[in-house]
């Protein structure tokens, strides 16, 4: 099981959740015949993250159900009791995603997270475990536990700097960075005096996958829907770029 995190350092609002969730769904669909649970997803955002809300489909759906925070607080002994299965039936076959989330804001230790990962790996055997974490701070429990890091930045100097710092802190192999919410008309960084993709290549060591700013992605988010399941690549350049990145992930990790 390969453990992956989408990371923007201390910066929020860069699109980590959108990219992590859509990548997880695309890989679950692509690998649906390779494993029973090809992809597991952990939303570490306290008080129910957006990814969990989208997967549950209803904010009230969390009532009375155990979540990872119950395991962390000692109310549930087996972390697998806090995992759920989201299943989709489409014209091209059914596929499913395994997920858990934090319903409360309780401090998660590195040891607890490591135990959760080990349990998932030994008993459910997914091909990958995707982690969606809130903006990180020093001493994050994720540090040292992931195999791969996907740096996600926006055309913003502070996002780039904090991401660069935390990629090293978290550890793991760096995958192709993502330049999200890119506006092609403003392709030059006025601070660096060069195109944004070159700035990112210089800072993070590889040319990024560019995901253009797309109103349709914002609309799908307002609807609490998973973009790649509701929008076609032909109508949404953002979805087209996310699909391209998922193909890259599949080729690299599969």
């Amino acid at each position, binding site marked *: 099981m390969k453990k992956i995190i989408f990371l923007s350092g201390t910066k929020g609002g860069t699109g980590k959740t959108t990219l992590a969730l859509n990548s997880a769904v695309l890989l679950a669909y692509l690998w649906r015949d390779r494993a029973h649970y090809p992809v597991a997803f952990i939303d570490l955002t306290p008080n129910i993250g957006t990814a969990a809300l989208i997967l549950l489909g209803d904010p009230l759906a969390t009532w009375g159900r155990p979540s990872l925070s119950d395991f962390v607080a000692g109310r549930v002994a087996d972390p697998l009791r806090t995992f759920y299965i989201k299943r989709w*039936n489409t014209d091209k076959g059914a596929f499913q995603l395994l997920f858990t989330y934090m319903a409360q804001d309780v401090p998660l230790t590195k040891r607890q997270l490591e135990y959760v990962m080990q349990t998932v790996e030994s008993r459910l055997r997914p091909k990958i475990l995707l982690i969606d974490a809130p903006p990180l701070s020093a001493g994050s429990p994720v540090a040292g536990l992931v195999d791969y890091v996907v740096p996600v930045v926006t055309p913003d100097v502070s996002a780039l700097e904090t991401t660069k710092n935390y990629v090293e802190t978290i550890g793991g192999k760096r995958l192709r960075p993502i330049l999200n919410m890119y506006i092609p008309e403003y392709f030059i960084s006025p601070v660096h005096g060069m195109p944004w993709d070159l700035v990112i290549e210089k800072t993070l060591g590889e040319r990024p996958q560019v995901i253009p700013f797309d109103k349709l992605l914002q*609309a799908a988010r307002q609807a609490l829907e998973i973009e790649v399941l509701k929008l076609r690549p032909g109508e949404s350049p953002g979805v087209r770029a996310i*699909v391209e990145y998922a193909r890259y992930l599949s080729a690299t990790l599969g």
Partner: protein
Amino acid sequence: MWFIVGVLLNAAAFTLCVLGQTLAATPIYLASLALIFIEKLSRNEKRKEEKRVETRREPTPDEIKRRPVSAPEI
């Protein structure tokens, strides 16, 4: 392009009329009118097409919500 040719022919027909060559000027005048109208019609069609492109509306969040789930195109 056709509009300019039409205007030039129109001017030529006017000149012929001034010179007293009314019979020769008549077909040239009619041809000039036809060219000018053709150009005008094609411009109107282009404008209509542009308007059609502009009015292609993006789906709203509510419309996206009501769409059925489809297999990802990957």
